[in-house]
């Protein structure tokens, strides 16, 4: 008589969106480890069709309340390529500042309120605030610094209103940008301390040789541009993404899963992939923090992503500080005008959770004729399942509650943004 053991997490906690997990073990062998996304789809790629070019950044922001800027800026860059316009270096720097703000607030949220409770053995950031008030208060203040950047540059922290195709509706006041300096100086020092603290955590898991995928720009750490590279040697332009990656539908999930072609292998995107492939590109303070935190690259444990997020907060603070300090006058122009025309183009950026790829097609009437969006969590789904299958044999000796917690922790290591993952994906363009 074979022994069948099942455990389920019906509603995953401390993730953005709605997901569940189903595991089936037959005679000690893991038969099923399904990370299921049951969040209902919202069909964004269809929603933008027939809309005006200028409306796209506002609409796609609503895919995710935690990383709206990633969606807005990826869309703007792709649409600008399709329209044949190039923004000024000043506009590019302000976009980078805005993106840094989003990285700081998103990473600070995940590190302190969603992820750290796992390492401290508590149920939430609220519980952690009772036992480690300094850690949580500092984390919330870090998050506030990121949100403040988004307010100053973007007009609002959740779903910024100032981002448009061609640049910004209104130039942020240079004095307001310089007003960020004091907060950012504090945040930089705080983030450096944070790296040292989280690197002393115990990191569970089975070490893996991940095939990571991220952007690698000509200079600097990957954020808003670059070629798509992988641990296994891929080096392609964003325009060639869909020749090397593909999405497939699995019956247990409303999010499509991405695989790398031709082998249809899962791959890793996000902080761990970025730091493994681009740690040589970290700005000085972040590089020093990474070099002295006691971890060796490449990192092979998903749980160590908490350290990478802290390192990336340092990097984002450093970059944001340099941009804020150098703001001497309001930029002019703040927006490059465009003439409507038909065209199509893609762009990829690094959302806090990893590679984000967009493609848009503009019709002869100047309206959006087609769109495709591949968010980071769809790309990580396959690797999350692969991680679960790898670590499960090691936790089967535990009782169900402990084994379930171990599985949940693996999923939270990825900071999955399920709301993003279900806002789908490959759209067949009617021609």
């Amino acid at each position: 008589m074979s022994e069948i053991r099942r455990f389920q997490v019906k509603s995953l906690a401390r993730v953005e969106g709605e997901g569940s997990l189903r595991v089936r073990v037959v005679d000690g062998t893991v038969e099923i480890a399904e990370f299921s996304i049951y969040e209902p789809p919202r069909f964004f790629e269809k929603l933008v069709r027939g809309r005006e070019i200028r409306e796209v950044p506002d609409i796609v922001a609503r895919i995710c309340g935690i990383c709206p800027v990633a969606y807005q800026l990826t869309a703007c860059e792709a649409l600008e390529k399709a329209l044949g316009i190039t923004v000024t270096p000043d506009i590019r720097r302000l976009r980078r500042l805005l993106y840094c703000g989003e990285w700081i607030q998103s990473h600070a949220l995940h590190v302190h309120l969603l992820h750290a409770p796992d390492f401290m053995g508590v149920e939430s950031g609220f519980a952690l605030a009772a036992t480690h008030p300094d850690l949580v208060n500092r984390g919330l203040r870090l998050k506030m610094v990121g949100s403040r950047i988004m307010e100053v540059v973007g007009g609002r922290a959740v779903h910024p209103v100032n981002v448009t195709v061609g640049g910004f509706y209104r130039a942020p006041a240079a004095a307001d940008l310089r007003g960020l300096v004091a907060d950012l100086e504090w945040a930089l020092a705080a983030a450096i301390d944070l790296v040292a603290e989280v690197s002393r955590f115990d990191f569970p898991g089975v070490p893996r040789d991940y095939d990571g995928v991220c952007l690698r720009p000509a200079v600097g750490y990957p954020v808003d541009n670059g070629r798509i590279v992988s641990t296994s040697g891929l080096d392609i332009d964003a325009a060639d993404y869909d020749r090397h990656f593909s999405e497939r539908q699995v019956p247990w999930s409303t999010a499509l899963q991405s695989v790398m072609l031709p082998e249809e292998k899962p791959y890793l995107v996000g902080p761990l992939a970025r730091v493994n492939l681009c740690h040589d590109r970290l700005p000085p303070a972040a590089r020093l923090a990474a070099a002295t935190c006691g971890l060796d690259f490449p990192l092979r444990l998903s749980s160590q992503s908490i350290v990478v997020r802290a390192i990336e907060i340092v990097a984002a603070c450093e970059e944001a500080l340099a941009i804020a300090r150098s703001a001497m006058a309001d930029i002019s122009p703040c927006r490059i005008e465009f003439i409507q025309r038909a065209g199509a183009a893609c762009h990829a950026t690094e959302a806090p959770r990893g590679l984000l790829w967009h493609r848009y097609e503009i019709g002869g009437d100047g309206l959006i004729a087609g769109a495709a969006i591949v968010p980071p969590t769809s790309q990580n789904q396959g690797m999350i399942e692969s991680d679960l299958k790898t670590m499960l044999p090691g936790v089967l000796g535990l009782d169900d509650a402990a084994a379930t917690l171990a599985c949940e922790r693996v999923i939270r290591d990825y900071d999955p943004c399920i709301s993003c993952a279900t806002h789908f994906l490959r759209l067949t363009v009617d021609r």
Partner: protein
Amino acid sequence: MTAKPRLAVFKFASCDGCQLQLLDAQDRLLELAGRVQIDHFLEASSRVVPGPYDVGLVEGSITTADDVERIRDIRRQCRFLVTIGACATAGGIQALRNWGRIDDFLSAVYATPDTIAALATSTAIADHVPVDFELRGCPIDRGQLLDLLTAVLLGRKPHLPGHSVCVECKARGIVCVAVAKGVPCLGPVTQAGCGAICPAHDRECFGCFGPSESPNLVSLTGFYERRGTPRESLVRLVRSFNAAAPAFRAESDRLEASE
């Protein structure tokens, strides 16, 4: 000492941005966490305590058959049910599907649409159960959220405005984008609460807080049309983040029917 009020946060189809406003309350977050008992807030805590709850905050719109059952159950468990944001209050941007055919949407995205459960429409929470308070916005305003929670805790009426963004805009001394720049703006018919941030950034209000009290949309769109804005652009303007809010829906349908 009486027991702390029990708070629950529930999510339906949404982007998480409104829940995030609660976590973005920074210094006031921990103060709030000390004054209420957070018994169901999956995005923030693994601790889930069964209902009933004193206050339930609901984010997101109803888009599946399961959702319809779940919101009825949640209503039974909550003394006060509060919808937070444009999705819960009006169906959200995903309600644009209400003007299309769901099969077109499904087959456009999925190879095997049968495994996906989705209703033909995205609807507001109040279309399914009685709602005690609604907070507008895409996303909601943090200040309004904290005021509403404080009001419920103290047993007073929340201070939520019924007037339009136009009033906020004038109070801030912002140059009118519609009058001075000829940009069609929904400020005159949109509920206040955002601080008129879009006109403050030299752009139109796109109605993310939904209709204000007694909005006169016919008059407003007629004004813009006489000034040269094509009717199909006005349909798109009114049909966005609060497309299915009754006043906005009626106007976009009227404009479309008379195209």
